[in-house]
């Protein structure tokens, strides 16, 4: 009997089906935009495609009158710097904390409840304290990302370390491994792709904290620009920026995935391809 669950789309229909939702959303937008623009040609809420083209031309392809730089490039570079630094620091911190937490029962007993509780503190709620400690500059923005993201990765890594089969660890000990050498030779190689996975999953959170940080105080950045022009409802700038952020996020996710599978080919063995 033919079951729905066993039908596989062909290459062509795979492409078509993947594209369909995008096309539908675009059509929906165009229709709604047309209706609003017919009522008020200056409507800013759902701008036409030509206003997007103009906005993109102005932001990305024309040097700014004030500084002579390309605003879009400037915004992207400074946001990516903050995001990259924040995520990198979070990943390193998480590795340094997650492995001992998962591997050494005494460390776990002492720190695990604290990390669990700390990860529940909403960073946005303690912003004024973060300002006083880290100032209003770049440090505060990176710190907000680190504080928001690190506990999530730490907790994930701790779980993954604890999931390593006991048999493996016993085997390594019978072969004469010390705690330190087992961390280096058994735990770390298995944990590393999981760290990358955790980073991929927290990337969305990292973007949220980046945008929030830039909304609070900044002179450039993707989030800064969106919050600045939001004041006068310039959706013609906001929507392309959102699309760009989405694309960047998607790209990082994809690159990290490819990197993980390339470096750790055993990691995806037996997984369903998506």
């Amino acid at each position, binding site marked *: 009997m033919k079951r729905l669950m066993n039908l596989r789309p062909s290459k062509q229909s795979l492409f078509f089906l993947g594209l369909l939702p995008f096309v539908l959303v675009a059509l929906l937008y165009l229709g*709604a935009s047309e209706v609003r623009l017919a009522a*008020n040609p200056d409507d800013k*809420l759902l701008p036409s495609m030509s206003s997007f083209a*103009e906005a993109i031309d102005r932001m990305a392809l024309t040097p700014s009158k004030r500084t002579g730089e390309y605003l879009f490039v400037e915004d992207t570079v400074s946001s990516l710097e903050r995001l990259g630094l924040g995520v990198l620091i979070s990943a390193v911190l998480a590795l340094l904390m997650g492995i001992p937490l998962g591997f050494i029962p005494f460390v776990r007993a002492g720190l695990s409840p604290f990390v669990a509780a700390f990860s529940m503190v909403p960073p946005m709620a303690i912003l004024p304290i973060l300002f006083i400690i880290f100032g209003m500059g770049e440090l505060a923005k990176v710190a907000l990302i680190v504080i928001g993201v690190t506990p999530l990765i730490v907790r994930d890594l701790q779980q993954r370390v604890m999931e390593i089969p006991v048999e493996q660890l016993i085997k390594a000990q019978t072969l004469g491994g010390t705690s330190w050498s087992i961390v280096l030779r058994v735990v770390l190689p298995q944990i590393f792709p999981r760290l990358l996975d955790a980073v991929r999953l927290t990337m969305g959170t990292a973007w949220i904290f980046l945008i929030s940080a830039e909304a609070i105080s900044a002179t450039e950045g993707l989030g800064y620009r969106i919050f600045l022009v939001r004041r006068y*409802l310039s959706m013609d700038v906001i929507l392309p920026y959102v699309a760009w952020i989405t694309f960047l996020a998607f790209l990082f996710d994809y690159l990290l995935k490819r990197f993980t599978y390339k470096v750790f080919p055993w990691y995806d063995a037996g997984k369903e391809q998506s």
Partner: protein
Amino acid sequence: MKSIFKSTSKLLVAATLVMGFGASSLMAEVKDKFQVSWTIYVGWMPWDYAQQKGIIDKWAKKYGIEIEMVQVNDYIESINQYTAGKFDGCLMTNMDALTIPAAGGVDSTAVIMGDYSNGNDGILLKNKKNLTDIKGQTVNLVELSVSHYLLARALETVGMSEKDVKVLNTSDADMVAAWGTKDVTAMTTWNPQLSEIMAGNKDANLVFDSSKTPGEIIDMLVINTETLKDNPKLAKALTGAWFEVMALMKKGDEAALTFMAQASGTDLAGYKSQLDSTMMFYTPSDLLAFTTSAEIPATMKKVSEFSFEHGILGEGAPDAEFIGMAFPGGKTFGDPKNIKLRFDDTFVKMAAEGKL
């Protein structure tokens, strides 16, 4: 496959129609239910009082309509919602009325200019006493807001321009915390944050405030012009309710003032001190004199030029006169074919003559 296409195309049409309804509220029609959005600010608390104490309802009933004052937490969001057609009226400053709804093609009319900032907005320097010391400093402020405008006007008075300082966009909600950090040395902000910072920090010196540029930052009730044209009752009811509360405030009615103080999160003393730096027009005749004065067109010209220089008059604005404005007495500024912001004295005049 075909049926999928059919049903999705149906869905598409339906969704487009639904989204289009947002636009239909922009179209004129005679109706009897209205919504006006407001946000917490010293000069707008009387609206809340009028709503809570049934004064709005009383006046609305007199004209056979219903009016709801909707509190929105975020000031800019409230204006954006109005611009998008969600509300029939909204409370905003003169500059925001020009750069948000008017620049967005929504023809708006300022019906009541309730007050102007007379010290409610100010520039603070840390450990420095003169405005000229601001040279070369980084100034924290809400970019492209009236604070930004005030800074530009202040710099003008001492022969400097924005090039002499660096502007750092900072959220208004975070100003008080920001002042406590060591890299913040200069700030432009408004009440209640302004007085909060000055009360709690000895190093904060007020070097310039809006009392030195009187009448330039005006807080007003703005109504969609199309809606107003078809429903003058709305403006009549609101104007009537407004001056009823103004009369109470003029008498110094402690109960009313305490109510407003609590609703804005302060106490009677705090609210009174904020009122001291707000020039309220308590009587219709005072407001009529201000509305019809020659200052308004002159101020709006300055605001329009500032907005154009900062690129907030919208795209395709070739100069500061791109958006036309109409003033009482048939005066206009800018493009008479593109009038999007109107200052109207009709209803204040009716109030002054006791005809409401």
